[in-house]
């Protein structure tokens, strides 16, 4: 399976989308306009790393080593999950411009 998002891209939650620990119900929730979504445990681990700093590559590396699972498998799961949220407008991916660090 091929990835749909550039793995060097940096994902972040769109304005109006927030991940938080819902202590009253003992779960994590993703809040969006008039929506409350209940991400499953795997999705929560991915979302916790979506901070506007880490690239998709970094997220995959960290998850693969933290859970000692096959990196290619993690890459496919992360891509599918993030691409779904990109389509819903809940996640934006910015691609670092080459030479950006020098400017």
């Amino acid at each position, binding site marked *: 399976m091929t990835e749909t998002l550039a793995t060097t891209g940096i994902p972040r939650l769109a304005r109006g989308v927030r991940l938080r620990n819902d202590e*009253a119900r003992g779960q994590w929730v993703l809040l969006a*306009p*008039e929506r*409350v979504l209940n991400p499953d445990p795997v999705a929560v681990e991915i979302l916790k790393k979506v901070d506007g700093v880490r690239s998709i590559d970094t997220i995959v590396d960290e998850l693969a080593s933290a859970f000692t699972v096959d990196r290619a498998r993690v890459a496919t799961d992360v891509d599918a999950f993030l691409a779904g949220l990109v*389509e819903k407008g809940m996640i934006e991916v910015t691609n670092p411009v080459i030479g950006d660090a020098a400017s």
Partner: protein
Amino acid sequence: MNIVAQPLTTPLARPAPPAPYGMLAELTHRCPLQCPYCSNPVELDRRNVELDLDTWKRVFSEAAKLGVLQVHLSGGEPTARRDLEDMIRHCVEVGIYTNLITAGVGVTPERLQSISDAGIDHVQLSFQGATAEITDKVSNFRGAHERKLAVAREVRRLGLPLTINSVVHRANIHQIPAFIELALELDAKRIEIAHSQYYGWALRNRGALMPTREQVFWALDVVEEARARLKGKLTIDAVVPDYYAKYPKPCMNGWGRQSLNVTPSGKVLPCHAAETIPNLDFWNVREHSLSDVWLNSPAFNAFRGTDWMPDLCKSCERKELDWGGCRCQAMAIAGDAAATDPACHKSPLHAHMLALAEADAATGEAEYDYRRYMTPDRNN
């Protein structure tokens, strides 16, 4: 037969209701617009009885603790409160997601910037029509439409997610395709097509608002087609019309089940129309904590769950889908808040309700009894 004796001294334990997800905070009833279907009560609260900032902050803190995840800052026009930004900042602090529900009239770009800086998560903007002519007529405010367009553009310029809310009725139902086009043009990601719900002001104006059956079914088709066509581009949420329906709406997804509403003067209601039901005892945040109201107030427990239901509902396989429909509608049409919602085809009053709608739709009445304060104000 299995009879278990119960001691008479201790009441049967009622299972604790689940925590509410959402809270509608009606910060004020003041509003520059006069929409004839306004969901505020006919008896509007005046400025001098509004809760102060400290009380609202306490209520938001209690809401967060109770499990409320999203607060809808509404009114009237919530920007009429000059301390709105303080409330938003407080909600952010206690982890609540904030949604501003505004009419967008009298909101300057500077004010929007300040609301954005305070940390608002989402803005919902009303349009009474898809064109200036209809918006200005329905809201009874000349120039309202142009101001709303400017606010919508500013909201998007600030990078805030935008929802367009359009309440539809006989004078604008034909504009549904135009409302959807407007939402796309304004770069909204979501639109609510909400058929007018007939309580309070809208019930007063039902003769001038009620669409025909043909219009309603046409509207449902238009929305369904647009949903499929715009999937991934625009979310279309619809509030269904129920006078012509077979099944009632699951009002509030069940009374006291998922959400609550605090009025400008601090009364806590299971829904915004609940005060149309006489003899319900609503508690006030001035005297009770929000959690106490949610768990123990007589009004919230009156129609919670399925125990209160008449046999017709209790024996129905849809009882936990429809939750008996709407209590305020049962009150308005059947004269009994504990009756089956007459929108349900099983109700003995279903045909009567349909006849009311058909008669109203045929009136051709075009004059509105606009929303306004009923008595002259001596205080402000």
